[in-house]
């Protein structure tokens, strides 16, 4: 029941899915969702460890991660809206004004 590895594997898989998503998708919002997936994978890891170790620090950490993720979402989505207002698109391939 309390098998740590199962949780770790799930969270690692989630993290990888998130990472791959960020790297392959072009829609900024989808990318951001993938990032959130990564963060939640981390949360899962923390909680699993916390439970396994019988130490609450991990769960407290998760609190902060969630808070920060919310703040990040607020800022990020606002940024996307500003971008959309100017470019009528949320595709990061359209964020191409600056190239070396």
């Amino acid at each position: 029941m309390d098998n740590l590895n199962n949780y770790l594997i799930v969270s690692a898989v989630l993290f990888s899915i998130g990472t791959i998503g960020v790297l392959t998708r072009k829609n900024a919002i989808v990318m951001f969702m993938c990032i959130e997936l990564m963060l939640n994978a981390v949360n899962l890891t923390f909680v699993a460890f916390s439970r396994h170790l019988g130490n609450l620090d991990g769960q407290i950490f998760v609190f902060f991660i969630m808070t920060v993720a919310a703040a990040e979402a607020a800022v990020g989505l606002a940024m996307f809206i500003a971008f959309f207002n100017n470019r009528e698109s949320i595709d990061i391939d359209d964020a191409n004004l600056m190239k070396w």
Partner: protein
Amino acid sequence: MDINVAQLFQTINLNVIMPEVILSVLGMALLLVNVFVPSKSKGYLAWLSLIGIIGAGFVAVTGWGTTVSSFNDSVVQDNFAIFFKMIFLLAAGLAVLISDQYMSREDCNHGELYPIILFTTVGMMLMAAATDLMTIFLGLELMSISLYVLAGFNRDSIKSNEAGMKYFLLGAFSTGFLLYGMALIYGVTGTTRIAKIASLVVQVGGAGNTMLLIGMFLMLTGFLFKIAAAPFHMWTPDVYEGAPTPMTAFMSAGPKAAGFATMLRLLLVVFPAMKAEWSDLLWILAVLTMTVGNFTALRQDNIKRMLAYSSIAHAGYCLVGFASGTATGTSGILFYMLSYTFMNIGAFAVIVLIGKKGEPNGTVMDYAGLGHKRPLLALAMTVFMFSLAGMPPTAGFIGKFYLFSGAVEAGYIWLAIIGVLNSAASVYYYLRVIVFMYFKPGEEEFDWFTISAPVALALVVSAAGSLIPGVIPSLLLQFAQQAVKLI
């Protein structure tokens, strides 16, 4: 659950985070002042912020020489933290000084700018003082999130939007890695206090523990993103180019230093047992970062982009100090970040002045003739360029000297040689600015701007800061030495 309230109070020593408290309170106050006192000009907010920053600086230095932990060992006030706090406050102060003129010109003079700068500074200061993974994370995010806003601050400018968006996506992405690394480290050691982790790292087998190793590298990856080390530097040029210039200045100095502060604390306090693993990696990354930064900068015409690549290169120089891991190298990082703050923000201050509304991203060619039309300004820019290039007798030289000395001391001669060769290559593009300023005739009269008092002050401070430590660096170097001694 047994909670001893008296004990809880004992863990708190507010003095340790007094500078942060001052800035936070000031930030919130300014936020309210901004909405309650409607005024077209936001200059007074800048001055108020500056007063707060100076005040916080004074409060911070009073703790010099002492090491006090607080909040149950999650924050510490030691020389290391104070030194870095000074860098951040300096960066913030200079950024505040050069903001008003730019923001008024670009019609994005929102009063929120100053509180956000202050919050960013608080975040950075927390990073430097943090001795707990949680505090590190919170500081980092407070800094990062504010920076995303600052990067996209000019919301009517598409470039600024793009900058904000890219910075945000990649920054958040890197946070994911950082956190995963922290989670693994927590899983191995069962604590988030770095002092405890440090003692446990050895117990659990150091590098022999795969999860710990992966955790460390993931965490490192997160920080390498923040300091724009190759190959995690892709965001830097775009973000630096797109962001409002004063914010670019701020971003290139403060957060980078904050990233280094935390990396230093982590690597030198938590993972000294695994030095063999990380120093090799940082060796390679240092070379890669310097080289990529410098050689890409060579091809840039846009001066902000050029400075962006140059800032990547500078991160590379600092990584040299890391790879060496000696006190010389690490104190070199501290000194270098301080002088880099002066010279880089100084350079950006000049860019702020030269820019015109709507096209603030001038090319190097736009500087043609500046040396003759505005000799003092050009002189200041020259000082900054030479300092960035690491020419004696500027602060940049002494900084590089110590960084490379660290490498030599630790036996990384080749690293030092690659470093100085890179430094020589970098001279080319820094000189290019000077070449255009002095050697090329320009049609521009450079009469469209006046140097406002705050910017003038920033320029003077930056120029002095780039020159004086180059001639009499002893005191600052000793401070840097004392600062790294504790970690």
